[in-house]
């Protein structure tokens, strides 16, 4: 056999397929990857230290900027953490609005994430444009409710910033009419597409044990065949009131992650339909009138976690009794999910790296905080 020399190359930090400023230090032997070291920190914004200088209330808009694709889900995690720390109750209607927003977020995230993944594979913009179109409709809804498309800043301690506008529900129902068509169409386009199968089947396998060892969460973990969803394992908010299934993969490759994401969109739609049925009327109140925003929690600490579209997002807050958190730690799913990238890529070709990275679905804002 011919003796070859290993070569180290950099993919990133400025690279269109790295979803931000992310650098992969790849050691290749010919086309085959022998080692990959993820290097991050190029987007460090001092998020946690900044949060310790701000009051609890002031941190809410900063959580939007963690995973800027899913601002609502980040808001939810932070609101739950502070509410747990202070002991604020949330009215029924507010809980339903919150879950509704978070599930819409899940749909738009998966629509976008799959689009970007297919984009990375080389299908320039086709699926991405379709996914972005669905995302756009949801963002319109977010805008009408919260005032902003991406940086929603919609949640408050003890509820949400304002009630749903009058035209929200009819538009949401229209959206749900289109949703099955959109997901089916996406599946028709992707599921048996030979090119996609070539690029994704058996690529980037993350075995179950390894996934658990790396404490990976979200669709990546479920793609590896572990039916772990915080909404089921430790139901927070009002998730114990809804029927929905947890899709899991069997192999743990890129293809499984695609299938899991497609199915999760369907399940989110199911949850939204149940929310529309159960949503209390406007008299329920979207905000706990007794809840103060400038909170001064008692001394103590709290860890609250939610299942964001990317996995487990947790906030660990330590209070010293003042209006500012003494310690503010974010357990970001993108960051943890990125750590096994080296093991996932080893042995595959260098062209698979961007596909595997795309299938993890990272947002650099969350990786480097």
């Amino acid at each position, binding site marked *: 056999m011919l003796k070859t020399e290993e070569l180290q190359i950099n993919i990133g930090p400025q690279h269109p397929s790295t979803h931000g400023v992310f650098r992969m230090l790849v050691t290749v032997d010919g086309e085959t990857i022998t080692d990959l070291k993820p290097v991050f920190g190029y987007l460090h914004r001092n998020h946690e230290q900044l949060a310790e200088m701000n009051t609890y209330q002031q941190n809410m808009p900063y959580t939007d900027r963690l995973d800027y694709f899913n601002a609502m889900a980040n808001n939810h995690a932070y609101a739950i953490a502070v509410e747990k720390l202070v002991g604020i109750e949330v009215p029924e209607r507010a809980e339903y609005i919150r879950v509704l927003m978070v599930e819409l977020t899940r749909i738009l995230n998966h629509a976008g994430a799959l689009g970007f993944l297919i984009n990375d594979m080389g299908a320039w913009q086709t699926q991405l444009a379709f996914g972005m179109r669905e995302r756009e409709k949801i963002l319109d809804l977010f805008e009408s409710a919260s005032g902003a498309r991406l940086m929603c800043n919609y949640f408050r301690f003890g509820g949400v910033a304002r009630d749903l506008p009058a035209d929200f529900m009819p538009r949401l129902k229209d959206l749900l009419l289109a949703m099955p068509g959109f997901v089916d*169409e996406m599946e028709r386009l992707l599921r048996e597409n030979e090119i996609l199968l070539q690029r994704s089947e058996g690529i980037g396998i993350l075995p179950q044990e390894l996934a658990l060892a790396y404490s990976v969460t979200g669709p990546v973990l479920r793609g590896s065949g572990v039916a772990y969803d915080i909404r089921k394992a430790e139901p927070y908010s009002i998730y114990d009131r809804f029927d929905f299934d947890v899709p899991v993969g069997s192999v743990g490759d890129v293809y499984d992650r695609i299938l899991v994401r497609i199915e999760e969109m369907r399940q989110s739609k199911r949850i939204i339909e149940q929310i529309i049925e159960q949503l209390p009327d406007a008299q329920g109140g979207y905000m706990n009138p007794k809840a103060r925003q400038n909170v001064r929690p008692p001394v103590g600490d709290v860890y609250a976690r939610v299942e964001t579209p990317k996995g487990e997002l947790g906030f660990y807050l330590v209070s010293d009794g003042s209006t500012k958190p003494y310690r503010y730690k974010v357990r970001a799913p993108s960051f943890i999910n990125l750590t096994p990238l080296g093991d996932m890529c080893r042995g595959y070709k260098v062209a698979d790296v961007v596909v595997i990275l795309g299938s993890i679905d990272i947002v650099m804002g969350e990786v480097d905080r």
Partner: protein
Amino acid sequence: MDIPRGNIIVMDRRRGKLRVGQGLIQGLKVVWDHWAGSFHKNENFSQIHGTFTVEYPDERLPLPQTYRNMPVLLYDDESGHELCTGCYQCQRICPPQVIHITQAKDPVTGKMVPAATEFIIEYDACMSCGFCAEVCPFDSIKMDHVYELSTADRVSLTMRKAQLNRPISYYASIAPDLWAEVQAGAMKKLQGSIKRRPDVIGLAAVLTEKIKARRLELAAAAAAAPAAAAPAPAAPAAPAAKLTPEEKAAKLAAMKATNANKGVAAPPAKAPVELSPADAKAAKLAAIKAANAAKQAGAAAPPAEVPAELPPTDAKAAKLAAIKAANAAKKAAEQGNSE
């Protein structure tokens, strides 16, 4: 493994009945459908085909009322009265700390006045979170809908008060429902402040009409009876010496009489509002002097009997006066004891 209220679905990886290449063709059909659909415009969320986009600089999508971009300050259309009182609430809450307020001061006394001489917002660092508009107790800071702010000159994005000021009618036109909400909730939000000083303290929102009416009324009153109005401020301003309780009671009676003459059922608490600034000052001075006199006179100060004569609507003001009198009496008694 079992999960509550749902099943675990293991994703089916098997192929359908498609032969090699048919999957691709199926996918192309999807793309084709979209291409064919792109010739008609899609107006409805329930459709997945059709064009959604608009040709931006020529066409614009309507913005929802709740849309927030950058904060602006409001002022009353007619009087030009700025609603901002310089209370620093927005400056304190602003997460990126881009709001800088300079509180107005009375040039003579050097005391703070409820207004802002300068109000700076650094638009270039503003994160559009909308907290400032949310906390503002006077509804003077609101989120604008203008989004075309790009400029090559960063410094020009540091907005001063003159650039931030917008008439109330402008905000009411971009967000009519929200402004109606403000008007409905204004009284509750501000509680006593408006009642006490409607002309000075912000929020013309719910009171725009009322203030306007009041101004007209005052102007009419001033024009109709300048002679009747004159003695009121003159009386308290005259005596520089300390008042005896008897003198004070007499003065109060005189004031009440003038009020009655004017035909305005104004309780004592509202009196300063009707006066011109100079008069208001004089009245305040007189009130302070009266309080001092009461203190010196001791426990049997006459203010205690005044509240009884007031109409029931002023129960609160009366109570306040009673408490004040009691406090003064207590102080006087303490002083007596120590002596």
